[in-house]
């Protein structure tokens, strides 16, 4: 059998393939689920399991004219859509999937994800700025304000996990949870803030103010067509996948079976199974959120962030630190 080592070419090929296929499948899953929940006509009727709808979508994306507006700023316009899928794939590289399965085992793994998420903000900003169009500019501005604000709470919310596990290394965080129990219980506030801020960071519903079809056409990607738009689209799905995989790693014990229940005999197979199961639950949760919630106004988004999330996350760090200090590590 193959020897599984973190970062081996086999690992990289398998994970990259799995992520890209999952991201493509997610487009179908999301349309299908939303089709049932929102009574949308296309995705739950065309072809077997609504697959024809996704095939038609892909055909449309690939065959559409790839148009660069003459009034656009060419270099940033072309660079912008490339940034988000690249950055999201890079941040997936540090996610531990099972013992020995993963691409990178960085000591600063958690910070790496934040660094990449920070760079991801440029995609929407540059797209909006380079399009040279008022709606795109408004979308880009909204994206910038939203991402830079929610990045702050996202960063502070996981400090509690770092304090408890004493490490930035995602694998060590998973191992620490195996020893001390899931961090979702001691870090419940941090967990809630992380999920909300992460959702805002991926610019998914209900935080898609940067696109806001009913107000600013399609926001920062108004001028994009064909595969350039497709890259924004795929990048968003990979971002959702990264977030859905990061939540189990940080708060739900990663690849370990919940409370030792249903542990499969082989550690690697068991790890992959539980990691995929936990990630799948979160993906489904985010799709349900999209179907259930409405988009807030921009000032509501900002007030909620700075007046509710920031104080809560700071108090969370303070209390966690005080408790750990009182217990004497």
């Amino acid at each position: 059998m193959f020897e599984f080592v973190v970062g081996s070419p086999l690992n990289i090929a398998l994970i990259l393939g799995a992520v890209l296929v999952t991201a493509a499948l997610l487009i179908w899953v999301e349309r299908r689920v939303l089709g049932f929940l929102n009574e949308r006509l296309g995705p739950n009727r065309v072809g077997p399991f609504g697959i024809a709808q996704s095939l038609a979508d892909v055909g449309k994306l690939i065959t559409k004219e790839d148009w660069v507006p003459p009034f656009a700023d060419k270099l940033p316009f072309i660079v912008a859509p490339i940034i988000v899928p690249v950055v999201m794939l890079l941040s997936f590289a540090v996610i531990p999937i099972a013992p020995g399965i993963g691409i990178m085992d960085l000591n600063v793994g958690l910070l790496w994800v934040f660094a990449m998420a920070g760079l991801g903000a440029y995609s929407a900003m540059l797209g909006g700025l380079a399009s040279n169009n008022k709606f795109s500019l408004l979308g880009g501005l909204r994206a910038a304000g939203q991402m830079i604000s929610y990045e702050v709470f996202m960063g502070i919310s996981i400090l509690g996990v770092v304090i408890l596990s004493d490490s930035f290394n995602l694998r060590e965080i998973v191992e620490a949870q195996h020893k001390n129990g899931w961090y979702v219980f001691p870090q419940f506030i941090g967990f809630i803030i992380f999920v909300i801020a992460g959702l805002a960071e991926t610019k998914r519903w209900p935080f898609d103010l940067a696109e806001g079809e009913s107000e600013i056409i399609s926001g920062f990607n108004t001028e994009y067509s064909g595969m350039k738009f497709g890259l924004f689209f795929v990048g968003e799905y990979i971002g959702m996948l990264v977030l859905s995989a990061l939540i189990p790693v940080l708060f739900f014990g990663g690849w370990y079976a919940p409370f030792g229940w249903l542990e499969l005999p082989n550690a690697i197979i068991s790890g992959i199974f539980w990691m995929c199961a936990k990630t799948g639950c979160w993906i489904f949760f985010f799709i349900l959120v999209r179907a259930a919630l409405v988009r807030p106004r921009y000032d509501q988004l900002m007030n909620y962030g700075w007046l509710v999330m920031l104080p809560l996350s700071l108090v969370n760090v303070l209390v966690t630190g005080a408790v750990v200090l009182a217990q004497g590590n």
Partner: protein
Amino acid sequence: MSTLFYLAAVISVLSTLIAITRVNVTHALLYFILSLISLATIFYTIGAHFAAVLEVIVYAGAIMVMYVFVAMMLNLGHATIDQERAWLKPSIWIGPSVMAGLLLAELLWVLKDTGAADMAHTVTAAKQVGIALFGPYVLAVELASMLLLAGLVGAYHLARK
């Protein structure tokens, strides 16, 4: 690792030069971001992993986002590009170039006498950085926090007007 170091160093110097000479503010900012990322790569190759990631998070990911944000708010059009082009006449470059060249010569002169730099890889863990910051350098941390507080209060005051 040393090949990576030199590659990142060349990219860093080139992108900084290009950033200075651009007339379009967005392009200049893009090259500056590239320069910061290559700087982070340099930190990483010499073993300062924590500093490398912080460089990307704080400088490339947060501060430069604010710069691009301001560029978007002002929405500078072709008029500013023309203005910038008028300002950046070739004769303007002479003075700064001479001074920068002198500094470069001085730096090379100093570097000539120091021995070969030690690129040995002692990876500095985040914990060591923390211990250093809140041990011997705690005064500097406190001073920096006071500076940041002053900035925060100033920004609050300006926003109230």
